[in-house]
């Protein structure tokens, strides 16, 4: 990760097309509504652009820093959570309209795949501190060192949370044996 000349704005679209799925997934996990997730993602991308944090791609070209993008999403989500008045307003409206608060995260669940729906439900019932590690590791493709930096936690904590989260998912997803 470094702060040099940022890549041209035109290359952002291509970069976002490649990484948009994983970034939006993390934004969804960090927020409570789809609208919030999109707002957070937008703000984070502008912050990332302004920060000038870049990585060097395999072809040697500069591209926005992926780990930095996750960090900015988390910061933007924290900032947004502080705007609790807006949130309360939106939630009240959602309640009035009787909207379910549930956001679908995975394409496979949308396609009514039963196992995928079970897995998604199991992930969504994990505590937030497990969910964020799982998402950054599996779909963000970050190392534990990068996860630790993004979430501002020690690396060993990131690794152990990942393992505990997997163990909890296994317990949830494996049918109990009949004695």
């Amino acid at each position, binding site marked *: 990760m470094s702060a040099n000349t940022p890549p041209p704005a035109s290359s952002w679209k291509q970069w976002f097309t490649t990484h948009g799925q994983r970034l939006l997934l993390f934004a969804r996990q960090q927020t409570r509504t789809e609208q919030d997730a999109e707002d957070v993602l*937008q703000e984070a991308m502008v912050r990332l652009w302004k920060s000038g944090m870049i990585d060097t791609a395999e072809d040697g070209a500069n591209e926005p820093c992926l780990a930095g993008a996750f960090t900015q999403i988390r910061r933007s989500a924290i900032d947004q959570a502080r705007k609790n008045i807006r949130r309360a307003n939106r939630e009240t409206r959602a309640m009035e309209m009787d909207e379910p608060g549930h956001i679908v995260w995975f394409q496979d669940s949308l396609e009514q795949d039963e196992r995928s729906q079970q897995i998604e439900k199991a992930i969504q019932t994990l505590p937030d501190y497990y969910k964020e590690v799982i998402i950054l590791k599996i779909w963000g493709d970050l190392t534990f060192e990068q996860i630790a930096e993004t979430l501002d936690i020690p690396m060993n904590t990131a690794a152990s949370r990942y393992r505990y989260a997997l163990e909890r998912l296994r317990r949830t997803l494996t049918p109990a044996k009949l004695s």
Partner: protein
Amino acid sequence: MKSEFPEPMDAGLLQIERELRSLSPIAPERALSEMLARQVASESEVPVPARVNRVVAGPFPWRRVGVPTAAAAAAAAFVLPSAERSVDKGSVAGGIRSAEEARPGHAPISWVPMPPRSEYRLVDGSGVLLINEPAPMMEYQLEQTEHHEWRNPRDNSLIRMSIPRQQRVLLPASYR
């Protein structure tokens, strides 16, 4: 993939990991990608609102106006060094630029956006109890003022824009 764990994970955990990896997150809608690309592109130009940008982009027609009139106009429109000037949305288009800026061939000011801030104020006496089914609600009116500022690092002059808004907030209430 090389494991980052000191102890290898057992087969059950690896199976769960594989199942998780097989799921594809839902992609952002195309409109969102387009909007982000536009936003980043606009941020990479001049970080001030479009109306301000247009004002500073064009050279001032000095020849047509004549030197004495132009000098008077420039003096009137000066942003004095370290002076702060509050500008509302309408007057931004009226032209905020220093005489230095207005000289032909001079590079436009690059205004640096400052972190925006918002103020919220509860309108006095706005709490109204609405007896709705299935739960009663309290309705409050909030006045929000969004403050945006852009600073010229060359002389610390400021452009300020304040946007007032009104919001109606409904909160669940109890009869107790």
